[in-house]
């Protein structure tokens, strides 16, 4: 296996690459940014730039397994504002990459639960209707469809992970509930809850997100899989867990907003991919708080 990881300097990529090194799994990494990566097989290049890809042509020629994490995230809802950039990186960037990887046999593409939009029913299975309401969600479902046609055409095994919101990273996820709650409660400021605090999500702990990839590297089972956590806490549950861990009693402020439960059905990943998350929400929150406090 000659493995390429794109988005190697990203939130998930950095952790994945460290884990691969630790487990002695050889790979090459690629990212537009280099955040202190020291692997000789790391290439800093932009997948929207074909000439940069072309320079590494001979290296990519040998790649037979792709883990495609590289993506533009968090780009709002105004198509006319961020649509082009999102398409350039996520959709066109993927096609560029495929052009320079002529010998692929297996692809893992990381997508998102936001491809479904607001659930018609919970839990949400993989064949739930796809009506994303963000520019990011659309770029992911569109890329999925292009990859599927390409994989069928070339006889490549394609696996898609539709990740739930991942927590346990303290970095860039500025809009995600858990890191925001932790930061505010640590600063003894009241976290804002949109809605009544009772909406549920089976948030995914980063270690489980990485584990799912490691399981895939071993069996490469194709298909589309929801990858989510075990527990589906409400936002109020999260706040009380964070308070408890930090020995604080900060109360939230409620702001009126549309709210809905999103519970991804993860049984398909269990039966077909043989992946099951291990981290209970309490442990995940506890670890995340510890990481935050350093």
């Amino acid at each position, binding site marked *: 296996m000659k493995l390429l990881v794109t988005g190697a300097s990203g939130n998930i990529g950095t952790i994945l690459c460290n884990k691969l090194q630790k487990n002695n799994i050889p790979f090459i990494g690629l990212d537009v940014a280099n955040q202190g990566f020291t692997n000789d097989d790391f290439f800093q290049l932009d997948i929207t730039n074909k000439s940069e890809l072309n320079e590494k042509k001979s290296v990519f020629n040998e790649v037979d397994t792709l883990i495609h994490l590289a993506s533009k995230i968090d780009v709002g809802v105004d*198509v*006319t504002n961020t649509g082009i950039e999102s398409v*350039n990186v996520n959709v066109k960037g993927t*096609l560029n990459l495929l052009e320079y990887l002529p010998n692929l046999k297996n692809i893992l593409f990381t997508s998102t639960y936001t491809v479904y939009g607001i659930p018609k029913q919970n839990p949400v299975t993989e064949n739930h209707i796809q009506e994303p309401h*963000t520019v990011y969600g659309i770029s992911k479902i569109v890329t999925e*469809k*292009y990859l599927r*046609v390409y994989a069928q055409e070339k006889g490549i095994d394609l696996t898609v992970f539709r990740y739930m919101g991942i927590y346990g990273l303290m970095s860039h996820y500025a809009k995600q509930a858990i890191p925001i709650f932790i930061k505010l409660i640590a600063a003894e400021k009241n976290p804002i809850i949109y809605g009544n605090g009772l909406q549920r999500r089976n948030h995914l702990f980063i270690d489980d997100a990485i584990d799912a990839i490691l399981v895939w590297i071993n069996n490469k089972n194709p298909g589309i899989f929801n990858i989510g956590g075990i527990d589906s806490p409400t936002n109020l549950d999260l706040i009380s867990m964070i308070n408890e861990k930090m020995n604080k009693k900060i109360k939230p402020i409620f702001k009126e907003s549309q709210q809905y439960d999103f519970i991804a059905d993860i049984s398909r990943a269990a039966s077909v991919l043989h992946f099951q998350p291990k981290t209970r929400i309490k442990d995940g929150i506890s670890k995340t708080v510890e990481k935050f406090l350093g």
Partner: protein
Amino acid sequence: MTFKIAEKNFLITGGTGQIGSFLTEKLLENKANVTILGHNSNNLKEIKDLVDTKKIKFVECDLTNENRIKTVGPLLQNVDFLVHLSSEFRFPEPNSLSSARHTVELDIKGTILLLQQLKQLQGILFTSSAAVYGKPSYIPTDELCSIRPISFYGCGKFATEKYLKLHSNNKNVPLTILRISNVYGQRDRSNQMIPIFTRKALHNEPIKLNENGSRDLIHISDVIEAIMSAIKLNQNNLFNIGTGMKFSNHFILKKIIEITKSQSKILRLEKSEDYNFVYDISKATAKLGFNSKVSIEKGLVDEILWHKEEIQKLANGV
């Protein structure tokens, strides 16, 4: 409340094509102002006279050309209603990466770049395709069938639907999506089954037949009727547009041979793919009052006559 078409400014992308040219004529009958966006002013075909006599405006713009779209933007400031027909079907290698790239440039980015210029829209109609369903998981296929395109053409149409939908939600502009089945009739210059059969039949050339196939063929004038009803309704809607009737390839060829009194030999394809398709159009019937009116016999007679005239024109060097 219906959308008043008279005096409104319509922009039609892909306006020189089969649907575009007929729709232009229909909108003019309804006293609309029509601007056509097309990539080649030297190939206006049926709408040339309308442009020459200034009954409609033509804006030359290739939707894959970002700079050009920005340049012509000021000409599109007053557009009230966008009819987005533009698409490319005739790829030499439909499922090659270069075709994929082309659908991203034209369908996805072209649509977004165009939306950036249209700031006062009151409605959008987009002609999508049955290709978004791929090989449908069931027939007759209704709008709830799962989306599994098996071609990059289908991916491009699916993507355009999604980006338009988000824009429509965000800006509060009603969006109608019509997933149209196989269109036939006059001005069909495509390389689809009926034009190919007809040209060969008229020249008494041998015709290759895929016996296992059948499709839902809809006549161009029925398509125009569906589009006009949808514009008048101007609500957020998604409709499958076809006849709801399944015509086998064999039946179509037999009819064409009969009408043209052709001597063509029929070559039955050994390795033919089994593609059977028919729409369930009950949603369009209920909400748009849509039903196909043109019988396949009448439709084929019309189309064959048109092809004859085209061949004659070509022979006369017109």
